[in-house]
């Protein structure tokens, strides 16, 4: 039975002819000024409008409405996925910061509004939401997840939009990829070095043995790479290597890694995972009678570990050494006091994670202000303003972030060290502020510790 192939073949030929005849735009590079523009579908051309009461003319295209007096910023967040509770608190911090700023006039009278979307930590959703929001926002206040940010990075470059990555992957300091990004905070691998040297000091042992484990992915592997470098630099013997072996939600890997750690009889354990995977392995280890000092990257900890009904609360309060890239809730700096004041006034519960939202928002605030002052609040203008940033300060809430200079000179190396606390509201107490370990200070940072392939 033959298909009436006439119409089908005509359609196909037409399709192929169209495809073949189509020329490509000149300027296959993504630099500005090439022959073909309009890389965003929503480009309505630049409007130059005079704001009321201001003598300056501000250029705008997307996300800034001078008539209505609003600036729209996008947040690509994971609110119900693996890092939901953490990112929800960060978003709450963002919201509170901008509410405070808007109440005192915003940015020269312009109110900043946040457009938050839930990507559920899925790459396809992340890209889809990026496409939706890029025609509505002037920049992205944060983009959650490393592979997710990598997926939109080439689009960010093609569209000329700024994004602040919400991941502490060490690869963001690479100038070859961060042209549209503003990374901040101590990268995972440097954090690991800090944590391990602190643990060694705390343990008082001459040369303790160490077990290192992690979940796979940029987060786990970057952190584990730092741990291996630290063990090497300090001359510690790695008695168990479970790097990348723990698969979240796969109980057999929990059993295997816990058995490995217990069997190795290590003095120190450095284990980076999601909170669920961390407590699962830790619980199994202490049930087997294992005692050691434990630590991991900051997102491995969850205040629920020391909650009233937690089975591991005493043990983990004894064993765990925690860290934070910014000052936790109880901090003494002016920045931390501001966070406490604003969040308590908003009726939010005490938790350590709002600080990240405030830091991201502070960076963006400085960028938007610089863009306004230069008279160009288009997406490209905001990006250009971001590239003129030299440094951002946070009133002690976080270490000063420097943006000009060699990666080795400007990468963040200091952080806060914490221990669990059974009494405090947040579940942690600060034991060391602005701590930089010797090995982290001496480490020659030449690029990503763990290279995200592909």
């Amino acid at each position, binding site marked *: 039975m033959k298909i009436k192939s006439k119409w089908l073949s005509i359609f196909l030929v037409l399709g192929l002819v169209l495809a073949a005849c189509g020329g490509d*735009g000149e300027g296959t590079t993504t630099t500005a000024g090439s022959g073909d523009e309009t890389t965003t*579908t929503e480009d309505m051309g630049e409007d130059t409008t005079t704001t009321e009461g201001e003598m300056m003319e501000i250029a705008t295209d997307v996300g800034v409405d001078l008539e209505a007096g609003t600036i729209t910023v996008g947040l690509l967040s994971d609110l119900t996925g693996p890092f939901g509770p953490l990112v929800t608190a960060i978003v709450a911090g963002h919201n509170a910061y901008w509410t405070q700023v808007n109440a005192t006039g915003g940015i020269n009278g312009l109110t900043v509004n946040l457009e938050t979307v*839930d990507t559920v930590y899925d790459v396809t959703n992340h890209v889809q939401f990026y496409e939706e929001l890029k025609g509505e926002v002037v920049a992205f206040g944060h983009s959650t997840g490393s*592979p997710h940010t990598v997926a939109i990075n080439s689009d960010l470059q093609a569209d000329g939009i700024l994004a602040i990555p919400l991941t502490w992957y060490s690869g963001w300091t690479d100038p070859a990829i961060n042209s549209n990004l503003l990374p901040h905070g101590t990268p995972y691998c440097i954090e690991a070095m800090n944590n391990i040297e602190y643990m060694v000091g705390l343990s008082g042992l001459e040369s303790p043995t160490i077990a290192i484990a992690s979940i*796979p992915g940029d987060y786990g*592997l970057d952190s584990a790479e730092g741990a291996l470098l630290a063990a090497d630099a300090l001359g510690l013997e790695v008695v168990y290597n479970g790097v990348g072996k723990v698969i979240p939600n796969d109980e057999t890997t929990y059993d295997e890694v816990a058995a490995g750690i217990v069997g190795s009889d290590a003095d120190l354990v450095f284990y980076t995972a999601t909170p669920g995977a961390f407590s699962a392995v830790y619980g199994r280890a202490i049930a087997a009678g294992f005692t050691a000092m434990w630590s991991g990257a900051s997102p491995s900890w969850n205040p629920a570990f020391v909650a009233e009904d937690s089975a591991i609360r005493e043990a983990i309060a004894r064993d765990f050494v925690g860290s934070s890239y910014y000052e936790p809730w109880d901090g003494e700096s002016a920045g931390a006091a501001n966070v406490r004041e604003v969040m308590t006034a908003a009726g939010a519960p005490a938790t350590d994670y709002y600080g990240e939202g405030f830091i991201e928002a502070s960076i963006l605030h400085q960028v938007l202000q610089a863009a306004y002052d230069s008279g160009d609040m288009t997406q490209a203008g905001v990006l250009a303003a971001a590239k003129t940033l030299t440094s951002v300060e946070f009133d002690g809430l976080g270490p000063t972030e420097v943006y000009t200079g060699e990666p080795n000179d400007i990468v963040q190396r200091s952080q806060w060290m914490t221990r669990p606390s059974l009494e405090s509201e947040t579940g942690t107490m600060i034991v060391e502020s602005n701590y930089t370990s010797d090995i982290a200070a001496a480490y020659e940072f030449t690029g990503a510790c763990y290279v995200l392939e592909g």
Partner: protein
Amino acid sequence: MLYTSYEADQAMVNTTTKRVALFLFVVFLVAIPLFREGAIGGGDNPTGSLPGPSFLAEGDWLRLLATVLIFAIGGLGLNILTGLAGQVSLGHAFFMGLGAYVAAVFGMPGGGLWGLGLPIWIWLPLAGLIPAIIGVLVAPTAVRVRGLYLAIVTLGLVFIGEYLWRNLDFITGGSQSGRSHPPFEFRLWKEEEPLISFAEDGTWFGILNLDSTGKTYLFLLVLTVLFIVFAKNLQRTRVGRAFMSIRDRDIAAEVMGVNEFKYKTLAFAISSFFAGVSGALLASFVGRSIPETWILFLSVQFIAIVLIGGAGTVSGTLMGSAFVILLPRIIRDVTGWMQDVVDAGDSFLASIFDFVVSTDQADFGLVNTAPGVAPGLGIDQLNLVIYGLLIIGFLIFEPLGLYGIWLRIRNYWKGWPFTY
């Protein structure tokens, strides 16, 4: 309908009305990227466009439509397997992942991960052929069982796949890290500059301005039409009739001389081909995939597409695909609109919507627009609930799915005003 020839009886588009409607629909689909302002016209600042709903040509909606086309291809494959041949399969995600990684290995240049850097006319067909071969290898296990047991066997495939993708990190990039996939570019062999690239904006014939999404959409449309014609034609061939007889009563079919083993294997092979191509297109369209992309939920989405749309029908699968992909966006837009009505002030509608939508911790609602903080279901969770309810509802009340609903509407109006 009175058919006077065998050709007329077997025609895929058998009435003039259908032909005209199909023609107009295809013209509409092709014209969608041209609804955007600035799509027509030469020079530096073109402003022309075809008259039509311009929101469809916006980047995000056009991306959604392109995703609908990609899922339609995969859905057609599952429709052939489940709707036509009656073999329940939860393993679609495995074959999609396999197709995506085959495409990545053959299409991406080598480096830290495996890659051969071959052009699209090699990696795209291979992305279908290799899963088809694996489907043939899997088939002997599958054809011995039917129904629930077949579903479990194919479910096992998905979990085997998850394990493989996590551990073969020299192919997949590893859990949570992932890898990039080849863009849509045409090269003859491994040249530097592609002949045609769908990843950049461009101008065709000097007056049609299309951005990369528009070009990609048209490319996917051509591919989808190819697959639709194949799938529709399959139904009226000997193979298609064999599939349907196996679906209806496989033992009776065997008795009548239909080689059950051969045709079930063929069904798996064809379905896996479609799934592999669909997976490769999806991964290349998004640009990056992680092993967690190819999970059971993806298979469930395809089951939803086939069941909600109407198992066994091609137009049903297309309707199902559009429904499943566009549903989250529509829910989001409707919730946003409801929120605007609530914000706008007091009206009867506003008070109802206030009950339905919640915006912060203190506000009660069934659906929330501030996930993680406000009570109520999040949009994604609402999606899942709706999928489940719809699958159950359609299976009970309208087994032919959306296609069945369309049939009822059509039949009602056929006899109007004398319907009974």
